[in-house]
């Protein structure tokens, strides 16, 4: 192989070795992106099958067990393989060093190791889900609640092992990013000049480091329960299934902030650029990210409001859950204020960012009745919850990921996608998504329990509408990704900084050279000095 030039960009290297053994954060980020988008489509397809089954009451395409397998498949792949690595491992990996003016992450080899471990975890999870004869496909739901998961004859051990391994990948990625942000910031890039995306990734990384080990040990205990009958979760042996719920949600609640915080970060990057205005209340947004990360550990109990936990536990957890609402509200107000007196370009990244705010307000507000004990008892484990977390996960994280992908697409690939097509895709998604999940709020309020294969005739209309919405939703994704892929081959070459951003990643060529910066840049001012009038 020839010696590469220093200014060779990172996409130029070809061949398996150059990618699979690459320690370059950009290539690793891109490999992650490919992997998670693949799993997004797989899990999305199983969601379509789930909605098809629910099109009409009774048997539509699969039997009860088949349905349980399908929603388990959807949940497990979406959560463990797509959304947890989600934005941090893809956009975070790609952009973090560029944004803080570093040549790479702190531990490039560890970064590659995380990716390999991720792939190993993928193998285990897929084995449990689809690698065995049909009768052994996992049907416990992604939450793996004991004692059902202790008794189930399906692949609980492989998936548990897989999630344990994925946990390692997640911990190592989080650790890598945290050290990177602490130690590799370019001269002049103080904490208070750090782009908000980095703050968000930092907060998410803290959760990855501190929450993941607890689910690791919990899942290990589940394996031990199945092998040795250690009795922690098996009632007949004196164990307590509610302990599993407690320990599981100690991780799995903070994990939703691993998913949503980076998406919030993406939005906070896009809004100032497309409004040509400084972000409003920089410190409030930065610190509220951190506050959400730190407080998120203390609210897991709201998943157990009807589980049989003690009266006072429910009381305290309800109060603490409300505490998370406040930093979230602050963020929303700040984002909206950023637009005030701006000069707004409604390109597709900006459309996605605004849609994020729109959908996220729904997601956040519908969290209030779920935090309020009186109403949560009724709404718990109903379709209301399903709709609520799909508004946060799809309306929040996925829309945020798409916003980021469209925004940084020229930087990542050096090409432009078709703007008109991406807007069409956006509207399809926006309408399809709301049509899918809006009826589910009603269903839930009317008492429709979740994870039901069959339902009473009285719920049929709303289910039908939701399923039709799901098809539009699915089509929209095909259209959007089709457009992005088309752009890779036929798109125009992108300029270095098409959106006139002031952030560091736009000061390097598109696509960026392998070593990012020839000279480590010195940062003079904060990132958001966009205003044309200086009235400070």
């Amino acid at each position, binding site marked *: *192989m020839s*010696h*590469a030039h220093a200014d060779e960009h*990172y996409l130029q*290297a070809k061949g398996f*070795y*150059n990618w699979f*053994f*690459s*320690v*370059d954060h950009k*290539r690793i980020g891109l490999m992650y992106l490919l992997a998670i988008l693949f799993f997004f489509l797989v899990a999305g397809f199983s969601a379509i099958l789930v909605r098809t089954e629910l099109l009409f009451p009774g048997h539509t395409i699969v039997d009860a067990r088949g349905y349980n397998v399908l929603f388990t498949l959807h949940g497990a792949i979406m959560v463990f393989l797509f959304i947890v690595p989600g934005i941090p491992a893809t956009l975070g990996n790609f952009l973090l060093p560029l944004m803080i003016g570093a*040549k*790479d992450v*702190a*531990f*490039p*080899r*560890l970064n*590659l190791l995380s990716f390999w471990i991720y792939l190993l975890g993928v193998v285990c999870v897929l084995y449990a889900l689809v690698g065995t004869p049909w009768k052994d496909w996992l049907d416990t739901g992604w939450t793996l609640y004991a004692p059902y998961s202790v008794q189930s004859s399906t692949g609980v051990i492989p998936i548990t092992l897989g999630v344990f391994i994925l946990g390692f990948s997640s*911990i190592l990625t989080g*650790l*890598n990013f*945290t*050290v990177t942000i*602490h*130690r*590799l910031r370019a001269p002049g890039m103080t904490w208070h000049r750090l782009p908000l995306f980095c703050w968000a990734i930092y907060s998410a990384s803290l959760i990855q*480091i*501190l*929450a*993941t*080990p*607890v689910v*690791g*040990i*919990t899942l290990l*205990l589940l394996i*031990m329960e199945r092998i*040795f*009958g*250690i*009795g*922690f979760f098996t009632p007949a*042996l*004196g*164990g*307590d299934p509610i*302990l599993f719920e407690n*320990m599981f949600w100690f991780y799995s609640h903070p994990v939703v902030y691993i998913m949503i915080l980076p998406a919030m970060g993406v939005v906070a990057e896009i809004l100032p650029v497309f409004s040509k205005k400084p972000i409003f209340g920089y410190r409030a947004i930065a610190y509220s990210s951190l506050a959400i990360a730190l407080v998120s550990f203390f609210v897991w109990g709201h998943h157990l409001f009807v589980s049989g936990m003690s009266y006072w536990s429910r009381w305290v957890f309800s109060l603490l859950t409300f505490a998370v609402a406040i930093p979230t509200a602050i963020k929303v107000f700040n984002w909206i204020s950023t637009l005030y007196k701006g000069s707004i370009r409604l390109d597709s990244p900006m459309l996605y960012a605004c849609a994020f705010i729109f959908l996220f307000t729904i997601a956040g507000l519908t969290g209030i009745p779920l935090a309020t004990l009186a109403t949560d008892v009724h709404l718990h484990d109903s379709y209301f919850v399903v709709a609520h977390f799909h508004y946060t996960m799809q309306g929040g994280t996925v829309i945020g990921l798409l916003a980021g992908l469209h925004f940084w697409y020229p930087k990542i690939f050096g090409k432009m996608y078709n703007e008109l097509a991406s807007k069409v895709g956006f509207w399809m998604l926006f309408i399809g998504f709301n049509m899918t999940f809006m009826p589910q709020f009603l269903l839930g309020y009317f008492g429709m329990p979740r994870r039901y294969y069959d339902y009473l005739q009285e719920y049929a209309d709303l289910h039908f509408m939701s399923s039709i919405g799901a098809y539009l939703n699915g089509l929209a994704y095909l259209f959007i990704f089709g457009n992005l892929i088309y752009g890779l081959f036929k798109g125009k070459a992108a300029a270095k900084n098409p959106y006139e951003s002031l952030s560091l990643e736009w000061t390097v060529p598109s696509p960026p050279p*392998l*070593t990012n910066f020839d000279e480590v840049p010195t940062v003079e001012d904060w990132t958001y000095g966009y205003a044309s009038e200086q009235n400070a």
Partner: protein
Amino acid sequence: MSAPGTFFHAHEEDPVEAYQNFKFGMWMFLATEVLLFGGLFAAYFIFKYRYHELFVKGSSHLDWRMGSLNTLVLLISSYTMAMAVDAAQRSENQKLIRNLLLTLLFAATFLVVKGFEWIPKFNHGIYPGTDIYFSIYFLTTGLHLLHVLIGMFFIGLLAVRANKGRYNSENFGGVEVGGLYWHLVDIIWIFLFPLLYLVGSV
């Protein structure tokens, strides 16, 4: 295969920077380790609270003298490890190798004592799953044992590299970070010992 940016051709870092990052990263990793054991500690406290009698009865099957002996052995190994780091900082290579080997020796002693505790238990038909106390006993000490083994592997690696003269006052990050890990293993044991061995001996 000399493509830049691949596994064997990562860009060079400033050694001081690399040392700082390495150490900071290790501290963070220790944080995850604490929480990994934390899940087990949480389970311990809950079941201890619910089944106090069962725990007292269970821990009466353990020999607190063995536990104390192992505590002392691990403490000494921690000391020798600290001395190894000190030797590396002072570029005293012979002393470094000697201390690393001593640490390994004490770690091995720990394993032997552990073996003398575990094997008779198996012979008495006590396994994880016998009752909740013994489940916790075997899981915590087992996970700790796993960490001892991993620690021993890395200390062995350090000894081999020290033997090649890799470490000196300018470059001792590896020894120090290995030391951090080993001390954590010690700290975990400091908590496990009274909780498992001494709760029932009143």
